[in-house]
């Protein structure tokens, strides 16, 4: 899983030009998070690999990086967006028929195939489940290639859980799905606590585990550290890092994290590579 990955750069002729995609479906996941189905109005972008991201443009408002949470038939992109600023609010408000600009796909992927014949352990915190959904779907699509497929999900509250209607389907298809929330509420009879608390029981054989971790940076640090402490090799733990991104094609300089340009060298990196970087304050 530590093999050097060729960065994928969009066709250089017009890397800053968005392709028009039409909203064909919109699902409100939580009070602030929406999943959009986007169908190409003209030529589609290259098919994103699990973990890659696109730049989504709301006409006249602006553009933000958003990880891809699924691929549908007919080059449909599934993208899950949390409204945290002007652009993401505009994207979340998009209605079926509206056009969204799409550039990409950009960055490194999760390298799911590196988990062949081993246990797939997916650890998601909050919106971090969105970029991990393609990992789970890829593992379930070729279920026999992997041993155990475990999904650990942490959310602030039951109301903040994403893809709730799919959780049962994933279980039926052979995933061991375990959920915890920071704060329970009336009617919640599941676990309460941090996602790291689920880790201990989720690892069967650390040497045969490939872990995929995404969530808030502090959650990724603690989870990845706990995995490493449990014996999972740091090179077999992948995390997805985030920094300000403007161009997506390693030209604008914003997404630097030490030696990395995260739009090119990330977002998915091995924990071995991330450890020294995440440990440095304000890097």
């Amino acid at each position, binding site marked *: 899983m530590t093999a050097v990955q060729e960065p994928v*750069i969009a*066709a*250089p*002729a*017009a*890397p*800053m*030009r*968005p392709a*028009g995609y*039409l909203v064909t479906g919109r699902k409100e996941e939580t009070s602030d998070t929406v999943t959009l189905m986007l169908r190409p*109005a003209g030529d589609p972008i290259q098919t994103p690999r699990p973990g890659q991201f696109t730049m989504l*443009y709301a*006409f*006249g*408002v*602006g*553009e933000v990086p958003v990880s891809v949470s699924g691929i549908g038939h007919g080059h449909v992109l599934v993208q899950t967006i949390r409204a*945290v*600023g002007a652009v*993401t609010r505009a994207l979340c408000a998009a209605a079926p028929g*509206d*056009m969204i*600009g799409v550039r990409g796909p950009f960055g490194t992927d999760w390298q799911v195939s590196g988990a062949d014949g081993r246990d797939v352990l997916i650890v998601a915190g909050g919106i971090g489940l969105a970029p991990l959904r393609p990992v789970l779907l890829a593992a379930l699509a070729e279920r026999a290639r992997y041993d155990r497929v475990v999904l650990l999900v942490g959310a602030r509250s039951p109301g903040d859980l994403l893809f709730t209607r799919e959780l049962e389907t994933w279980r039926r298809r052979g995933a061991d799905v375990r959920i915890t929330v920071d704060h329970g509420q009336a009617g919640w009879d599941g676990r309460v606590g941090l996602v790291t608390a689920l880790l201990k029981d989720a690892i069967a054989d650390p040497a045969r585990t490939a872990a995929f971790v995404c969530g808030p940076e502090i959650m990724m640090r603690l989870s990845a550290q706990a995995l490493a402490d449990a014996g999972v090799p740091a090179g077999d733990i992948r995390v997805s890092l*985030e*920094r*300000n991104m*403007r*161009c997506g*094609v*390693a*030209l*604008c*300089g*914003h997404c*630097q994290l*030490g*030696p*990395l*340009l995260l739009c090119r060298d990330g977002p998915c990196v091995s924990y071995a590579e991330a450890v020294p970087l995440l440990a*440095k*304050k*304000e*890097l």
Partner: protein
Amino acid sequence: MASAPAIPVPRLIGIDGLGALFEALVAGGYHVIGPAVQDGAIVLRELSSAAELPHGWGVRLQPGGYPGRPRDDTAAFGHAAGPQSWKRFLHPPRERLWSATRTAAGFEVAEDGAGGESGAPPRYAFLGVRPCDLRAIEIQDRVLGQPGSRYAARRSGAFIIAVNCTEPGETCFCASMGTGPSADRGYDLSLTELADERGHRFLVDVGSPRGAEFIGRVPSEPAGEQAVRGARSAVEAAADHMGRQMEAGGLRELMADSHGAARWDDVAARCLTCGNCTMACPTCFCTTIEDTTDLTGEHAERWETWDSCFDLDFSYLHGGSVRTSDKSRYRQWLTHKLGTWHDQFGSSGCVGCGRCIVWCPVGIDLTEEVKALRTEREGGTEPDGAEER
């Protein structure tokens, strides 16, 4: 030309020859960009003739200052690097990437050509590129020159006339960085200005077939051995007259190991985080994207503008900026320039031009900062330079 003229040996041209070269470039369709005096500073702009060059002008470079001074000769290139660099032309400060119009189906994007508004990029001839700036262009080529990019289109057409340095400035340290004072590659023509009892002349080295073609259109004479020796030794001697020095060995490791250095607090107490150093630096390339609309909301545009890692917004993620402290932003700039640039683009990002020292309003001198970081890592006390402030 029917056949490429064979001009392997250095040539000599006079001041008339420089004028003739200028005219030949204009006739060849080039926009000639070069230094000129404007508002008391030496700026780079499009020139209408070689007479506009800053003949008889020098400058006195100092931390936070750049006073012009008259020379006692008529040298056209008797000044050191000014506030601007050639990136202004190859990587413009502000550029429209596309415009779009709302339609019934959504919106339609009309992409501007490689040159922005007008389509084809202008063909530039850069007259008077210092060896340090020549390397800076080479460095930006590696960062921005992806095939098919707007930068690559502008760059591939550019004709470069380098000028070797014989009088380095007080803040110059190209000899430390191995980028000067002599241009060794990457030019079409390279000049060494000679002003002595034999008159005002230029020794011309040819670096490309295109360079040979143009010098062939200009009255020139073979350079005698004495003129060549004189020019070469003047340039060689310049290496010993650098106003600054910076030990380049181990810089990458020093930057990687210095994240927790106390010196960052020291420099942050002086740094205004104004970003001048990043604007003046010939290799700093960072940009931001601005998406705009007109008042009707029917027309949108995307602009790319220079940005600076000293800006608080530069590292903004929802919830806040990653680099909030002044020290973290100075540290990002210096460690990127001298350290992680190697990881990202295969070389150092510093060419020793000294602009960041001159154009810093409080005179922060990176050679002093590096010295202090080195001393700190080696467990020493305050370096000599620190007390002089």
